[in-house]
């Protein structure tokens, strides 16, 4: 009795101490939520974590297609107790995930405060932790017979227990090694929202890869558009200020850079870049050049990216792949066809190498160039031609650069080690939402 009382007292004391800790949050950035979730990195009251095992609260932001409901339930159940879920709709329609949530909130400050309140209540026992959504049962009966559950008929090959086992297969060096099938996504933190890959790995080398169709593709419009993508979608059908468009482009490149820095373990520098993106002005060209020097010193543009994920110009010619193509030496840019840019001295920046380092340099160079263009543009407005150069490449009625590039992805990733594959994927800046925003805009259903 006394022991139970002591344990309870200790738990309460620890709960009071722990309540002030930054809230470990696993965030799912749904449609229209990428920037909002990214900005949470700047809030010292929260800590965005890479694994659900490290989280206390699951934050679901923006709109989510039906196709993500089941993976989301799995994700929810992999959070340790005590746990809670918070939905942050950001203007999206009713959640597609059929669970009750704590009261929804729509402002950023409100999110952090609510997350803190949830953590406090969970740790003090004032809020019960959420039970699992899915039944805790084996996918198929376990038939192992050994003292450690090993062996047994039907447990030594194929997909016993509902899980594929490694099978012998050829590797890149002509050997026959174990090849493990593995599905990564759709919530892997280094991937863009919605990307899922079916992989076959020999050791850490990718021998086969197939992208799974994005759950965003073909999903009904959720009625929200990311703030950073909005002006490019608008430019498809109406004149927009060139200065605003270029400032938005520079911001998008810096936001990409902030995520890319997290992927090479430079999260603190990533936060600095994120703050620069949020407060970016046309006079910040020097800050971007200073940033370029910092990236070379940290070897983010160097040993982490040199020679990784090389994409030859011939592979992307005519795809309108934006910075990917220009980093490989192709001067493809929709802005060269826009009369609003004539007289501004615009010439597409190009690199030669076509590797991840070249793509990093390309985006950084384009961010600085965009600020110069924005400063020179005055009140010029674009001329709608049905296509626009978004930060990721050509955006038009047919889709965006990501949609056109996706079929090349297996060829780019095959033969890479996993770490290099992630570096390559990050450097591509894939965006499955952009095309949906454009499609939704055509239907006249987009809100800010």
């Amino acid at each position: 009795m006394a022991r139970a009382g002591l344990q309870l007292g200790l738990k309460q004391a620890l709960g009071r101490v722990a309540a002030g800790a930054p809230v470990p949050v696993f965030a799912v950035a749904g449609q229209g939520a990428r920037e909002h979730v990214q900005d949470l990195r700047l809030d010292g009251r929260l800590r965005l974590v890479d694994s659900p095992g490290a989280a206390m609260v699951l934050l679901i932001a923006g709109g989510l297609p039906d196709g993500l409901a089941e993976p989301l339930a799995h994700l929810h159940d992999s959070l340790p107790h005590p746990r809670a879920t918070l939905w942050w709709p950001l203007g999206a329609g009713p959640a597609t995930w059929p669970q009750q949530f704590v009261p929804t909130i729509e402002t950023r400050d409100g999110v952090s405060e609510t997350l803190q309140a949830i953590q406090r209540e969970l740790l003090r026992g004032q809020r019960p932790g959420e039970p699992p959504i899915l039944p805790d049962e084996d996918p198929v009966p376990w038939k192992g017979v050994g003292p450690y559950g090993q062996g047994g008929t039907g447990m030594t090959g194929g997909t016993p227990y509902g899980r594929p086992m490694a099978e012998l297969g050829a590797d890149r060096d002509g050997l026959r090694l174990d090849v493990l099938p593995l599905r990564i996504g759709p919530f892997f933190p280094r991937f863009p929202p919605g990307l899922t890959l079916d992989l076959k790995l020999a050791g850490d080398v990718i021998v086969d890869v197939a992208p799974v169709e994005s759950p965003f593709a073909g999903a009904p419009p959720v009625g929200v558009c990311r703030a950073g993508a909005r002006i490019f979608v608008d430019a498809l059908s109406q004149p927009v200020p060139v200065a605003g468009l270029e400032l938005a482009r520079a911001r998008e490149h810096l936001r990409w850079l902030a995520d890319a820095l997290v992927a090479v373990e430079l999260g603190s520098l990533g936060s600095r870049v994120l703050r620069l993106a949020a407060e970016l002005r046309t006079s910040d060209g020097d800050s971007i050049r200073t940033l370029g020097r910092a990236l070379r010193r940290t070897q983010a543009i160097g040993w982490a990216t040199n020679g990784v994920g090389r994409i030859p110009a011939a592979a992307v010619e005519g795809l309108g792949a934006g910075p990917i193509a220009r980093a490989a030496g192709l001067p493809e840019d929709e802005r060269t066809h826009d009369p609003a840019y004539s007289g501004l001295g615009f010439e597409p920046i190009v690199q030669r190498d076509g590797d991840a380092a070249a793509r990093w340099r390309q985006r950084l160079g384009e961010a600085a160039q965009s600020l110069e263009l924005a400063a020179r543009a005055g009140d010029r407005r674009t001329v709608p031609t049905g296509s626009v150069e978004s930060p990721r490449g050509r955006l038009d009625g047919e889709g965006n650069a990501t949609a056109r590039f996706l079929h090349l992805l297996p060829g780019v990733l095959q033969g890479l080690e996993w770490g290099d594959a992630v570096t390559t994927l990050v450097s591509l800046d894939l965006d499955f939402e952009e095309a949906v925003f454009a499609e939704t805009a055509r239907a006249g259903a987009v809100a800010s």
Partner: protein
Amino acid sequence: MRDYASPGVAIVAVGAILVAGVYVLAVLDRLLGMIVAGTSIRLGALLAEPVQSGALLVLQERRTTERPDAAGWALAPALFGGLAAVALAMVPLDRDIVAADPATGFVVFSAAIAMVMIAIYLHGWSPNSAFALHGAYRYGAQALSFQIPFLLAMLATALPAESLSIVDIVDAQKSVWNVVREPAGLPLYLVVGVAVSFWGPLNLPDAADLAGGTVVEDSGLDRLLWKGARAAMLVAVAAMGAAVFLGGWWGPWLPGPAWVVLKTVALLVVLLASGHLLARVRIEQFVFVSWVLLIPLALLNVFVSGALLL
């Protein structure tokens, strides 16, 4: 007969120093992160956060996976932390203040470092999870590459002392510290020291591209103990670096133990700064650089150190 503290005193002292070291490391790491990120520093929050986050992990339930090796999962952080404690026990705070001063202290420390690979492999293997196992294999490649230069860098420090006792190695630096005698030794030691604790640019087993690697499935106490053990090993590496390269307790004005603490913190700052200022190294590059550059450099360091003593 060399000095040994009584087991009870040694365990309590080493445990207390490790806990204090891990706390200081957590605060320093956060501070460096805030400086690089350009965020405002609030001292109260900075000092409280490691304790608060630690308490939160204690209250979180342990999570399990499908068919894990439960015993291995629980043992791995204990083994890692134990090895950090063994390594730290060899570091003298002063000539007469040391948990254990065996004639082969150098060998004991090196053996502890070598066995870290077992702890990390066990940790990655146990949860029955692809990313965790992947991280474990990465450390295998990493450890096989850094063990030789690590030993050679340390071995050169034993030559002036003509002894494998850490106390003797520090004692031999009364007039000249080893960092002056062997300028290549400390940089080499720091590079492999970062690799041993897989920190910053050499955090390959628990990397962001594996969503946490060997730690991806850990929650609650498992996560706290693993992170604590890893930090403890970095503290032990820094403390040993202070002893064998920076003259340990030797220094003017302050008492010997204060110098050891100051030098350890200085090395910790350098090791931790690498995590905020250098990008992740590719494993293939690290293996190549270790075998082609670091091993010959470490050998040269030993030969030159030996020749100068003749």
